[in-house]
């Protein structure tokens, strides 16, 4: 009896590992690992600069990448569960667990983007507290975790994108330095592809055709930011 149970567990684990190691899952794990690695490298590489300067811009910039690391961790966690149990939607399979995981993922995602935006805009937005963005992120996360509706997801992400892109554009127009225009393009691409990453999780199979393309561009964006950071911090 014990032997049979042991064999059962063994074959179950074997099948599970098999599922984990298929091409889709392998790509997913490598993709998440590289993005989390880049985000944490950026966070730790800027630690000394922040400790010495206590500069608010550096603080928000670092926090943004810490939140990106958390968000990608939860994103890959959701993806692994979807792959492992061969399901399309986390909430239909594990309702409470699925909603909580989505809530955490959406909160970290929104805050990562808001922190990056705030790092560029903090001088102009000093009157607006960062707590306001925490509140907005909580509202976004709650709405997405409570409603199971693609239209709402699209609407939230479109509003999010309009707000981010208009802010980046205004900041770009006000910037007097020509050399930093590349930075605004990188930030805008980061925001666009991050929203694709969110839609990929919220609406399964919607972007499947472009998934590899989204992953490659996202990796390129994070690696280019890491390169810029390493070049400046040594």
């Amino acid at each position, binding site marked *: 009896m014990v032997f049979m149970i042991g064999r059962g567990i063994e074959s179950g684990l074997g099948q599970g590992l098999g599922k984990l190691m298929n091409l889709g899952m392998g790509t997913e794990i490598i993709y998440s690992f590289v993005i989390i690695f880049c985000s944490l490298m950026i966070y730790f590489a*800027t630690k000394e600069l922040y400790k010495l*300067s206590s500069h608010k811009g*550096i603080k928000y910039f670092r926090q943004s990448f810490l939140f990106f690391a958390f968000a990608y961790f939860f994103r890959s966690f959701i993806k692994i569960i979807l792959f492992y149990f061969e399901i399309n939607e986390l909430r239909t399979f594990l309702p409470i667990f699925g909603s909580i995981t989505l809530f955490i993922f959406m909160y970290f995602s929104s805050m990562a983007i808001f922190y990056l935006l705030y790092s*560029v805009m903090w001088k102009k937005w000093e009157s607006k507290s960062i707590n306001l963005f925490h509140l907005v992120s909580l509202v976004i996360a709650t709405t997405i975790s409570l409603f199971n509706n693609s239209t709402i997801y699209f609407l939230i992400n479109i509003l999010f994108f309009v707000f981010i892109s208009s802010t980046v554009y205004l*900041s770009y127009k006000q910037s007097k330095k020509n050399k*930093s225009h590349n930075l605004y393009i990188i930030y805008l691409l980061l925001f666009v592809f991050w929203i694709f990453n969110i839609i990929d999780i919220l609406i399964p199979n919607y972007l499947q055709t472009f998934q590899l393309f989204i992953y490659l561009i996202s990796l390129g964006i994070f690696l280019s930011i890491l390169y*810029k*950071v390493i070049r*400046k*911090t040594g």
Partner: protein
Amino acid sequence: MVKRNKLEIIKDILKIIKDNHSIRPTPLMRMSNISSHRFKKYYLELLEKEFIKEIFGKNKQIILTKKGYRYLEKYSAIIDFIDEFEL
């Protein structure tokens, strides 16, 4: 004359101390070229952050700590980084 920002004022104060090895607060304030009120604010902040240290002998002297030297070393990198990412 362009107004100096906080990071630049801190760099200037630390550089004066470094160039003099040790200095008394009053000449430091004079050479820093800032008002006494602002100087006091920066002075307390530098003490709190352990960039400088007070030595009590015949007169009170101020010297740089390791962290203070490190700030001066990294100052260009900090400014470059802020500039690069428009922070």
